[in-house]
Structure formats: structure tokens, C-alpha cells
């Protein structure tokens, strides 16, 4: 009942990107996404504030391997150079695969 051929793509990036990012995910054809507010530290220093210009969001997308790559490439191309951003992908099993 559980389909193991899916990917969970997680992006941690600047809160200021939320609108752009969700629009891009829609355009690229992701079936959905989940977002939580986050804080953290990385190569661009500590990002930890009420202050939306220096806080993070953590975005998750469940999708197949193809879509995961497509999204990863898009983000790499458009945001990696100029924005605080980290991206990782893992294997997940899901129910109702027709949904994604």
C-alpha cells in the first residue's frame, strides 16, 4: 500500500523568498508543498530574527525523482548564488501515489 519511489525535497532559505518560491513550485508542476518558519546558521551567517529579512523558511515538497531534479535545478539556477539556501533530498514512501 506504500509506494517507495518518491522523493522528499527540502529547502531551507530566506523568508523573503516565500512568494516567489511557491509561485515557482506551482509553475513547475509540484502537487503541493509544506512550509514552516525556521531559523538557523549557514555560510551566510546566523539567520534568526522576528525580522523577516533575516529569518528562514523550511519548504518540503513530495514528488517523484524527475520533479525533484527539476525543482533542484531551477533553484540552483535562480537562487543559489545570491540567496541563503540549502537543499536536500531523501527517499520516502507514500500512500495514495496518484495524488502527487
Amino acid at each position: 500500500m506504500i509506494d517507495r519511489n518518491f522523493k522528499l525535497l527540502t529547502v531551507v532559505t530566506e523568508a523573503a523568498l516565500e512568494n516567489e518560491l511557491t509561485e515557482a513550485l506551482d509553475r513547475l508542476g509540484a502537487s503541493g508543498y509544506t512550509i514552516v518558519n525556521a531559523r538557523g546558521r549557514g555560510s551566510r551567517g546566523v539567520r534568526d530574527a522576528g525580522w523577516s529579512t533575516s529569518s528562514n523558511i523550511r519548504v518540503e515538497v513530495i514528488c517523484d525523482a524527475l520533479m525533484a531534479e527539476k525543482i533542484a535545478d531551477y533553484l540552483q539556477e535562480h537562487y543559489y548564488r545570491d540567496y541563503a539556501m540549502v537543499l536536500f533530498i531523501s527517499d520516502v514512501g507514500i500512500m495514495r501515489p496518484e495524488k502527487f
Partner: protein
Amino acid sequence: MSIDPVILFFLLGLIAGLARSDLRLPPAIYELLSILLLLAIGLKGGMELSQQQMSSVLPQMVAVLAMGFILPLFVYPVLLYIGRLGRPDAASIAGHYGSVSVGTYAVAVAFLASAGIAFEPHLALFLVLLEVPAIVVGILLARGIHSGTRWGKLLHEIFFGKSIVLLVGGLLIGWAIGPEGIKPLEPLFIDSFKGVLALFLLEMGLIAASQAREILQRGIFLVAFGVIAPIPLAICGALLGWSLDLSVGGTALLATLAGSCSYIAAPAAMRIAVPEANPALSLTASLGVTFPFNIFVGIPIYLEIAKRLHGA
């Protein structure tokens, strides 16, 4: 010339932050405080405007708007040639300094109130008018006109950014309801104004403190710029105010607006429109240096300038 009580809250926040206290205002509270400030400024201004003839104000508005487009053009070459910053950073910072700071404006209003100095109600209008143009010019400086910038989307985001919406909304509501209609709203929006401002400044102090390390790293130019730039900018504002026949208080406030620099609308817009610009640079100069400079040192100076201009 005694210090206004609210400024002490900034100091408290600054010290607490530098001492690495765990004191922190939750983001939601910071949001609430800025919403209250913006609405209060708008409401009060609008209410007073409702008792004025607008015809006399219109030419002034055009002049102020023009200043908003011009100021960043003064700042940009300094950053580019003296500061030797890259084009995106110079343009972004120019946009910040051409635009205005609501927090600084609120402190100046409180300062004038303590000193018993009146000012024209339409200064709140000028606050709105000055917020956007410099940001647009900053983006243009960074990207040029023919770039791929999606201007429609960008202008929409700037004009319907929350600070403009709340200020303009407050102005219109205040204007529509007038002095009578505003009475029941006064306990929350007007009477609590200084208390809200005090808490807001507490948080600003904490944020400014968090910029301390950046300031040290960025070296002397950024600090010097943050301290010196406001003065000539404010003088432009004061001269304009004086030539527009504003009162001493109005002139001082317009000078403050010109000398202040944005840390809400501009950073958000620049982050999207000029991503190559390093946000740490502009935020450090704006919040870490110029904001404290203005509320402690700048505002009294600008009032002094206004007084001299008026020969008072």
C-alpha cells in the same frame, strides 16, 4: 535639551543585546507594534488633514515627491566612487537612504511634542510620498531600465507592501472620520502611542545590537557613511521644507525624513529586485548606524537647522 524617555528604551535594548541577554520580543509582537505605529501615524495625520484645505498642499506634495526621486542620486556616486562598493550594493544602499524610516519619524514626532513644537498635519502624507520613489530609483540604478526586471510585479509589491497600505489606509480612514470619529479609537491608537513606540524602540535596540559584529567587520567606511550621510540629506530636506514655507516643526520633520533611511520597505524590495546586493551591508548601515545616530544625535540637530533657517 533633555533626552526623550522613549529613546532610553532603545538604549535598554541595545545594552541588553550587546550583553547577550536572552531578552527578545516575539516576531508577532514586533508585527503588532509596527502595525499600531503605522496606523496611529496615518490616523492622526488623516484626521488633522480633514480639517485642512488640500489645494495648498498639492504643490508641496509634488516637490516632496521630486525630492524622493533625487536624493538617492546624491548618495549613489558617493558609495560607488568613494566607498568603492559594487554597483548593486551602491544602488541598494542609495535606495535605502533615499527612502524613509517610520521609526525615526515617530521618534521625531515624540521629540517635537515634548518640546511643544507644532507641525503641519501633512507631514504624515510626506512620509508616505517619500517611501517609494527612492526604492524605484535604487532598483533602476542597479539594473538599468532595459533589464529583465518585472516592474509590474515589483511596483505592486512595493505599493501594496504593508507599510504603505497601513499608512495610506490610516490616512484615508482618519481623513474620513475626522476628529469626532477618531475619539473612540484614541485609547488604543493615540494614547498608547508612546508606550507602543517605547516597546518598538526596545526591539530596535536589540536588533541594532545584533548588527554589532557586522559593523566591526565592515570597517570604517560603512560607519562613517552611516553617520555622515544623514546630515547633508537632512539639510536638503530642511531647505525644501523652508522653501515650501513649512513651520519650524514641519521643516525639522521633513529634514528628519530626508536624513532617515528605510529598514522595512527598502530591504524587502531590494532583496527581491537586486539579489546580488549584500543585504547585510545596507541593513547594518541603516539599522546599526544611521537609525541610532538619528534618534540620539540627528533629530536635535535637524531641529536646530530648521530653527536657524527660520531665523528663530
